[in-house]
């Protein structure tokens, strides 16, 4: 406990890094996954290709990705960009399928009605299909965010692991408190971010809760 208090500013800076390294990729990944998921959902045959290619990305070991990205991107081996890009890739891998599934689950009648009312395909996507997909997409984002928070720690091997630094540092210097504090902080961060996303989701989709309440009421 003493170690924690003595190193509070060090921990704070690691925590800030961790948040940036883990959540910026989620945002980037989501922004890329939405159009890809849209494409996958539209292209009947292409869907399998896009979704499976994206899924394949997730099977690349994170450590390998951290090490090979500098070669591919031409960045320095110790550039934090590597971590951001690697985790963005994982987010895309996770979310393309989610977005495609979410869009596919939008009731065809609603899409049909929107078209018949005179929505252009792009406007229909923005005004109807995407917002209706939010509950499902958000569930995927929560998984991606927690996964990203956990994966950042691997970056510590190239010096950008956020709170993961506390694992390597504490392990090398045999400071148990540092390792334990690191683990606890990562878990707490994951829980807090997950909770916040849940809250944001509720604020974005008041209609979804009422729909569920009604559905439950009907089955009760």
């Amino acid at each position, binding site marked *: 406990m003493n170690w924690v208090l003595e190193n509070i500013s060090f921990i704070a800076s690691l925590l800030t890094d961790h948040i940036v390294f883990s959540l910026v990729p989620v945002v980037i990944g989501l922004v890329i996954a939405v159009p890809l998921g849209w494409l996958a959902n539209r292209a009947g045959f292409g869907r399998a290709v896009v979704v499976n290619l994206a899924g394949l990305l997730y099977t690349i070991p994170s450590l390998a990705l951290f090490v090979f990205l500098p070669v591919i991107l031409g960045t320095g081996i110790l550039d934090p960009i590597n971590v951001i890009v690697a985790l963005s890739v994982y987010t895309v891998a996770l979310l393309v399928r989610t977005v495609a599934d979410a869009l596919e689950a939008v*009731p065809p*009648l*609603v899409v*049909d*009605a*929107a*078209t*018949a*009312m*005179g*929505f*252009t395909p792009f*406007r229909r996507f923005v005004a*109807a299909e995407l*917002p*209706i997909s*939010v509950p499902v997409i958000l569930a995927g984002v929560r998984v991606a965010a927690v996964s990203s928070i956990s994966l950042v720690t691997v970056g510590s091997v190239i010096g950008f692991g956020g709170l993961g630094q506390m694992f390597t540092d504490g392990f090398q210097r045999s400071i148990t408190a540092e390792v334990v504090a690191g683990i606890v902080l990562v878990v707490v961060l994951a829980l807090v971010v997950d909770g916040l996303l849940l809250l944001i989701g509720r604020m974005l*989709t*008041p*209609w*979804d809760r*009422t*729909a569920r309440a*009604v*559905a439950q009421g009907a089955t009760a």
Partner: protein
Amino acid sequence: MIEFRGVTKRFPDGTVAVDDLDLVVDSGRITVFVGPSGCGKTTSLRMINRMIEPSGGTISVEGKDIMSRDAAELRRGIGYVIQQAGLFPHRTILDNIATVPLLLGWNKKQARERAAELMDTVGLAPEMAKRYPAQLSGGQQQRVGVARALAADPPVLLMDEPFSAVDPIVRETLQDELLRLQGELGKTIVFVTHDIDEAIKLGDKVAVFRTGGKSAQYDEPGVLLSRPADDFVDAFVGRGLGFLSSDGLPIGDLPVVAIGDRMPTDGWALVVDGERRPLGWVARGTGTVYEDALVPGGSLYDAGAGSLRAALDAALSSPSGRGVAVDGDGRVLGSIGADDVLRGLADSREADGAPGADVGRPVTDTDAADRVG
């Protein structure tokens, strides 16, 4: 006016959904497309707003070829109501109704005011404005669907089996409401249903489609029932109308005069001989009834032994609009209107062969074919 000229729809797999359709939908009236599934009625409807593009022929709305217009723009000018409403689950009732006005570029305040107005028109309580579709019953959702279609005040309304997903009692209310609304708004409505009773109740004109995408008959409901063009229409529309008894239909009064009596002061009167057998009709006039003033026309039906079809035909063929009911000896008993027959038909279908229900009881006699004059 919506005009189909030689319209054909052939799907990529070779199925012909609509085959060389020629049909004119009158402005300000309700036209119903009815038929068994796979008859092309929905495809025909969906071609009007280009949800499905015709593969041949032309469709024009108010004289303009629909293919000459931008699809999205065309659709904003045509109201569309579908089964289960297809409301946006993520938008409030008010915003659902305001959809098309907003698409047309109205400002939010105007669009919402218009939406609130329409909630009132279709009979939705104002406190529902802020609710979401999932919180409404099926019937209420369907009202929202109608309000949404009417929001931008389009001259044309397309309704694709809008009431088939709600229970029969609510359906009947919604049908009545639609007729009431139409009385106020006078839209050009094309309504698709597979339910012949609904078609007859709502349609000013009814097009019966047969499998393979052909229009088998396009007429007013009464004509359709009394004079089906062929066996298919007879089977589909009449459901054996010719075999249902007219016994029990409410026979109304009929002004009767004899040759030499004073002319009727208003409306029509039936001229009879000394045995109360019909000779012909006379219209309102002055002086006395003389033989040359008689207007022939109108079949008779035997109130005891005739069929519903005979009764309907009598009403529709009569110059006065009232069919002449006679007894077994051909003596006048009274008159009947086409509405009475249609109502009797609806009743017989509801009773569905219940014992004791006179109307709709099967008859064995052939249709009475006597004529007035």
